[in-house]
């Protein structure tokens, strides 16, 4: 069954001053989707997410969203000021910052926040300063903040950037669980094997959409070279595509000559 449309981009172009970041984007996100946006640095992944979030207005085309769509946003952890004086609990309740709310966290809010933290394996850490957490815990705090808003649609910018393998697995399992619970998800990543290959739908982006489909359909040498501008090979392991850097063999041969 096809889910209702949450977000629809039609011939959308976004630019910063006169520099076009993404152009002619046609993309539909439906309820139940779990979409990964892949592409090289500067390909417009973050711009596309920001357009979906509404923090950038298209210069051409348009974007429509389901009325009153509750969105949660998890930014890149690299953009976070880890030295800022806030505790885990304060970060989580931030999304309830509308005017009229008292400075002090209410009993109900605290109870809700503790439930979300417990759910994400962060129980007992609510009074810790955010810098005192491990990389995986820090990432999950920001997912918790997005979930505290009870979103129908979760937007994540590079959720596994700069994290170790174990944390990447934790994040992937967490997102899969949330998707099973009915949360629609879109994320950007350039981690092809660790994250993108595990998702049900991938969009290859390099200023414009190069391909949109399942990993098996999209992760092909031709599409990848068109997207990343570099030759890549694709192997199949356990029924899943595994992307190999095309210049790897050449470099290995040159390195072996140096040995």
């Amino acid at each position, binding site marked *: 069954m096809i889910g209702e449309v949450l977000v629809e981009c039609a011939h959308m172009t976004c630019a910063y001053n006169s520099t076009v970041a993404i152009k002619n984007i046609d993309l539909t996100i439906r309820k139940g989707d779990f979409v990964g946006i892949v592409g090289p640095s500067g390909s417009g992944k973050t711009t596309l997410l920001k357009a979906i979030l509404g923090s950038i207005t298209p210069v051409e085309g348009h974007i429509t969203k389901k009325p009153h769509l509750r969105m949660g946003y998890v930014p890149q952890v690299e953009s976070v*000021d880890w030295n800022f004086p806030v505790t885990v609990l*304060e970060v989580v309740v*931030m999304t309830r*910052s509308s005017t009229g709310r008292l400075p002090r966290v209410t009993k109900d809010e605290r109870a809700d926040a503790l439930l979300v933290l417990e759910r994400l394996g962060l129980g007992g850490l609510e009074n810790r300063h955010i810098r005192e957490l491990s990389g995986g815990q820090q990432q999950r705090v920001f997912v918790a903040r997005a979930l505290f808003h009870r979103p129908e649609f979760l937007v994540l910018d590079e959720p596994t950037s700069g994290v170790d393998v174990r944390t990447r697995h934790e994040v992937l399992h967490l997102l899969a669980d949330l998707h099973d619970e009915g949360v629609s998800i879109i994320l950007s990543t350039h981690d092809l094997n660790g994250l993108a290959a595990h998702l049900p739908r991938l969009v290859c982006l390099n200023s414009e959409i190069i391909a949109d489909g399942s990993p098996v359909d999209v992760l092909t040498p031709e599409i990848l070279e068109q997207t990343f501008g570099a030759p890549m090979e694709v192997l199949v392991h356990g029924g899943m595509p595994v992307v190999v850097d095309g210049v790897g063999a050449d470099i290995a041969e040159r390195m072996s000559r140096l040995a």
Partner: protein
Amino acid sequence: MIHVIAGITTPFRYQFFNNGIIVATIAGALCGLLGVFVVLRGMSYIGHGLSHAVFGGAAASAVMNINYFVGAGVWGVASGVIIGRIARRRLIGADAAIGVVTTASFALGLALLNRYGQAKKSIEAVLFGSVLGVKTIDIVAVSAVAILSVVIIVALYRAFLFATFDPEVAQVSGVRVAWIEALLMGLLSLTILVTMRVIGTLLISALLVIPASIARMLTNSFARMLWISPIIGGVSAFVGMYLSYFLDTSASATIILSGTLMFIVVYAVTGIRGRTRISGLHHI
């Protein structure tokens, strides 16, 4: 013993000193409160720039015999609008726009006072502050801005926190970030306007930065910073003002030196923990 007590309380026999110490203490606390946002947002240069811009307005209003609060206030707002326009056109960066507009305003103020004012006396009073000219209207003005700031920050505490920590996500989550930032700039401008006559153009940015930096070394909590920093600002202003009477030094300079001494003590006492906490404040 009686002589000692009489000596300690001597300054309080003078009305000008009482007025001065009241204004300085409230101004110190007010700067400490807003300084939390200045420090955590990396906006020290804006406090510095605004005080220089307001100087031009203060000079112009003195020369033209216009009420200080009206003249300097209008001038400060106009400078802010011009800075915003230049920065939005992206011909030059916001920091360069602030540098050009505020230093031009400062230079114009100096030139006006040189040409038409009682130059030396007026310039020194505005640059370094003066407790001699503090009037009841100054006490009323600084108290009103302090009360307004506390009310606004308490009422919009969460929005201020979110917009300071993570403006992009705050915007997406429904916080009107541009409005919050405009409100903060307005409060900062008002604070500079009402405290500048006592603290002076050159030293006011220090009073915005030092108490908040000390508070940051003492706590890891934003909420606690918001009451520790005003206390430190108020105490350093009270102590500095009081000592200046006996040391026969500039009140504003002694206030800043009191704050600096507290900074050094806290820096030494809190050790690595305190230094780590302020290590993220790169602009300090």
